[in-house]
């Protein structure tokens, strides 16, 4: 029933083609992702010796739509997005941040592969999850929320990481917890909150076999995107976009809004803090902060709340925005700036004006002016 609900949810709101907003979901390979941020960045291609404009963002896993299957959460998921610049890349690449609240609760899967470098696993993410292959491999995660493993019957293999993860009431409900396994050498490097007496340890050969069985896909992918998951810490999250090719072109920097508060409180962990874009515009000689940023071949748009500003790629503000809108009230980026009623009224007013002018012209002709 739950899966049906998830599918309906996906169908109603989360079609990949329409995934162009934060908080919007999309489904890929049986996993439902929620977009937590989107941005455009420039990336240097060493092979072609050229700067590329790439569409990228971040997502977290919010659910699963399949059963009795092997589900892989990749470190990076590709999906087409209306946010993309169609002339640069067809799809946007989203880094997977974490696993959301109750994402796999009650699911029955053959196996679940979780990549390294996730930032969080939300409340009750694996509650009553059944892995028919027998082992769930959980790599080191920065934050683990409450009751993640409650009611699980499968073994859980915890992988050691470079940093101690923070667990918040994850292992409090001891009666409902499954068996936790770690590598012999890792028994002192695992989550400090986890009582060591609860742990089983295993030799490296058993460890390798389990990983090979349930993690092969992810290991391959992680190797491919080693750079991506290595630079996944919050501190490093900052993308610089330089518009145009001249020195006096505007510089756009993307960063997390209220990053420090998020780190301290740990609230809304499933929803990462929204991004903000700092625009340093040499043309106006101003440095402004915006909530949204989007660009095309000739101009870019910055938004703050419901106010949107348009600039040419040189940074010159476009004052007459009415000229940018099409007949349906959308700007070049597809944003509905004028509502349909406003457009209708405007069209009606134009038509009335047109009719009135026509009548005036007819009268002028009739009276010989």
């Amino acid at each position: 029933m739950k899966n049906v609900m998830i599918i309906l949810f996906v169908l109603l709101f989360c079609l990949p083609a329409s995934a162009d907003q934060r908080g919007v979901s999309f489904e890929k390979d049986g996993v439902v992702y929620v977009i937590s941020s989107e941005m455009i960045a420039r990336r240097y291609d060493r092979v072609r010796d050229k700067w590329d404009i790439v569409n990228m963002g971040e997502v977290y896993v919010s659910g699963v739509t399949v059963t009795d299957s092997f589900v892989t959460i990749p470190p990076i998921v590709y999906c087409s997005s209306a946010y993309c610049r169609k002339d640069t890349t067809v799809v946007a690449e989203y880094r997977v941040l974490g696993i959301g609240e109750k994402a796999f609760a009650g699911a029955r899967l053959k196996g679940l592969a979780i990549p390294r470098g996730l930032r969080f696993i939300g409340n009750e993410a694996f509650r009553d999850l059944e892995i028919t292959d027998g082992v769930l491999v959980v790599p080191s995660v920065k934050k683990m929320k409450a009751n993640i493993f409650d009611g699980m019957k499968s073994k859980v293999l915890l992988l050691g990481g470079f940093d101690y993860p923070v667990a918040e009431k994850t292992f409090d409900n001891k009666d409902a917890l499954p068996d936790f396994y770690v590598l012999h050498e890792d028994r002192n490097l695992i989550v400090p909150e986890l009582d060591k007496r609860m742990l089983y340890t295993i030799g490296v050969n058993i460890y390798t076999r389990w990983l090979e069985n349930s993690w092969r896909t992810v290991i391959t992918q992680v190797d491919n995107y080693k750079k991506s998951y290595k630079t996944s810490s919050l501190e490093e999250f900052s993308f610089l976009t330089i518009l145009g090719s001249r020195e006096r072109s505007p510089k756009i920097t993307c960063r997390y809004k209220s990053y420090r508060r998020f780190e301290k409180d740990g609230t809304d962990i499933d929803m990462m803090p929204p991004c903000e874009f700092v625009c340093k515009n040499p043309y106006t000689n101003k440095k402004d902060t915006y909530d949204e940023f989007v660009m095309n071949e000739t101009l870019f748009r910055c938004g703050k709340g419901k106010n949107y500003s348009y600039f040419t790629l040189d940074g010159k503000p476009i004052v007459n925005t009415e000229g940018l809108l099409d007949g349906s009230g959308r700007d070049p980026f597809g944003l509905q700036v004028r509502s349909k009623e406003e457009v209708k009224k405007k069209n009606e007013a134009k038509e009335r004006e047109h009719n009135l002018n026509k009548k005036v012209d007819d009268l002028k002709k009739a009276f010989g002016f």
Partner: protein
Amino acid sequence: MMRIALAIIFTFVLSFRLMADDCTVGDVIEKDGISYKILVTYLVVDKKESPDAIEGPDKFYCSGEAMVIHVDKKLRDVVIPPTINRFKVVGLTDSLFYKHKHDRIWLPELQFMGSGCFAKLKVGSGALVVHNVANLGVGVFDGLDAELIFDITRKINLGKAFFKNHKDSAHVQCGPKGVVKIRTDMLRYIKPCWVYDECYSATSDNYKKWIRKAFNGDEAFMKNALNDRGYSLGMRSYSTTPSKAKDGLLIIASAENVKGLGFPWGNLTRDYYRQSKYTVVNKKKRRKVTCYRDFIPVVDATQRSGWYVRFLGKEGEERFSLNGKLLKK
């Protein structure tokens, strides 16, 4: 000449060894479907009967070490006690449980386990619990059809227990079909062996769960075996005179490996792999410690106490009165 001959006859006729269990090396004791072979014997005394000094030659008992040489295949539960008739069970012979099928097996702490001892054994409860064992033979757990739990508290010499006795290569690994389990704190003791990379470990309640499961959760079964540990083997250290006396002999009975013959297991046709050892300390001359292979209390009416002690060592036979004075032959 006549006097000497008469003295020998007198001594031979009157002297006797008074032992409660009249066992000698090589004898086989059978009890509850399990056969034990006596490896070595030595004399001990009962602490209750001789709390301070030995009161007479009849206060000695035969004690020693025994090895399990046969287990009835029909037994469902096998309990190998730590002691059998004052003899300490020190080991299991080669291939003792080879291709056997038992429901549960209780083993005491042992000195040795023979080669292929548990090879192809099937344990109904699903796990075999091995306690502290000093030495292990070759391929001891080869093809064991159960999990193997090392319930150890100190370092064990795994030797070639997890390797086959292979002529071409001495490093052909062999182990149980099930997994190997051990207490987490004891992992360091098996680290040099390849089993370390193939084993599970746990502590506290999780470890107890494994042990309970190995005995089908039957607390009584575990307690029965544990109770057997309380069986008294007798005092191996005793004195011919009261402890406050300044003269006399302090005797310490023990057993040692026979040099050159190696470990007790292996070729069972050899009769003696262990031999008794009596360390004798003269109370008057504390620094003088002598070791002998055999010890016989001899009844002699000519002595004031009515008996004396005779030791057999490398240098031949020596006789002492109870106060430690060397008697002339």
